């Protein structure tokens, strides 16, 4: 065995990953090669010392210092805030779409349901503004809007679903109102 191979086996020995066969080969080589023997002894002694060095005790107040510097609300607020953004955005779309569809309806059948639509829109607007005023202050709302825009891709499918659902319900209402209207005439 040459010294390069012996050097590799010394490394494997230090890895504690040496087979019995390899260890016998190494021992035989070390018996005849003083240079490798010296290398082996030096490395072995060194890493024995290195591995004997025991751990140092960390300061006792680390937990306290860490807990004082982290944003404890980071994971609490997030889910709560996201929920509010979702509710507000869903209701805004709901009220907007309701407004436009009822407007169209009011124009096509004048006088018939204008009172009803006005009442309906008014109550939706009141409801949304009630949520906005009571749950979020203005600065939060601004931050929320920025976040809403940045998270648009995430919110978009939900908003679309609400919109579609809303459309279906309104279509049903229109059909019913038209039916009543036709029967009256």
């Amino acid at each position, binding site marked *: 065995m040459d010294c390069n191979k012996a050097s590799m086996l010394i490394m494997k020995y*230090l890895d504690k990953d040496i087979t019995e066969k390899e260890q016998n080969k190494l021992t035989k080589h070390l018996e005849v090669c003083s240079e490798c023997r010296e290398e082996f002894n030096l490395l072995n002694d060194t890493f024995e*010392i290195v591995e004997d060095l025991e751990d*140092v005790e*960390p300061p006792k107040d*680390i937990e306290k210092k860490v*807990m004082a510097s*982290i944003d404890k609300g980071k*994971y609490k607020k997030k889910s709560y805030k996201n929920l509010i953004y979702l509710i507000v955005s869903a209701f805004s779309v709901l009220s907007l779409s309701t407004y436009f569809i009822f407007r169209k309806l009011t124009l096509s059948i004048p006088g018939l349901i204008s009172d009803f639509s006005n009442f309906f829109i008014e109550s939706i607007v009141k409801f949304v503004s009630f949520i906005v005023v009571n749950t979020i202050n203005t600065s939060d709302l601004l931050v929320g809007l920025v976040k809403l825009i940045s998270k648009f891709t995430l919110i978009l499918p939900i908003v679309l679903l609400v919109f579609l659902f809303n459309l279906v319900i309104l279509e049903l209402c229109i059909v019913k109102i038209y039916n009543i209207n036709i029967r009256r005439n």
Partner: protein
Amino acid sequence: MEENDYKLVKRCLKGDEKAFEEIVTLYKRKVYNIAYKFTRNKEDSSDITQEVFIKAYNSLDKYNPEYKFSTWILKITTNYCLDLKKKKSVDTTPLTDWNETNASTLSAENNYIYKENKNIIIQLINNLPKKYRILIIMYHQQNLSYKEMSDCLNLPLTKVKNRLYRARGMLKDNLESIRKEEF
């Protein structure tokens, strides 16, 4: 243990701050010791440990449970240590910092040689380039496996192995040159 770690992480993500305190208690010793063995300075190690845990907390939602939590936190620690810009002052009294269980059984003369050798070795490890030093600390002082080191350092296993072999070789060469100087 690993399952418990993940449970703690999930509790943190639900807003339970106590769970994060438990994580700090579980891992502060490991983090602090890597930092101390890397910097050889208690004050710096304390700062590094705090920074590592703050970083860990802030990116806890990015933790991938496929990896062991210990590997994840050590990854943050080693990255932090390797990124340290300049070497700050080193404690000048390292002898008393180390518990000397073995030394106490040796004779007075051997004890002296043991301590001397130990100090030289510590100093030489400290003088190795960062990327080699961290491997000696992780493998020989923190008993991490090649797989764990490879995950922590984002390096292939073979590269970690070659680098550790190279680090040992460098340490040996430096020790030899010191010995030659002495005689």
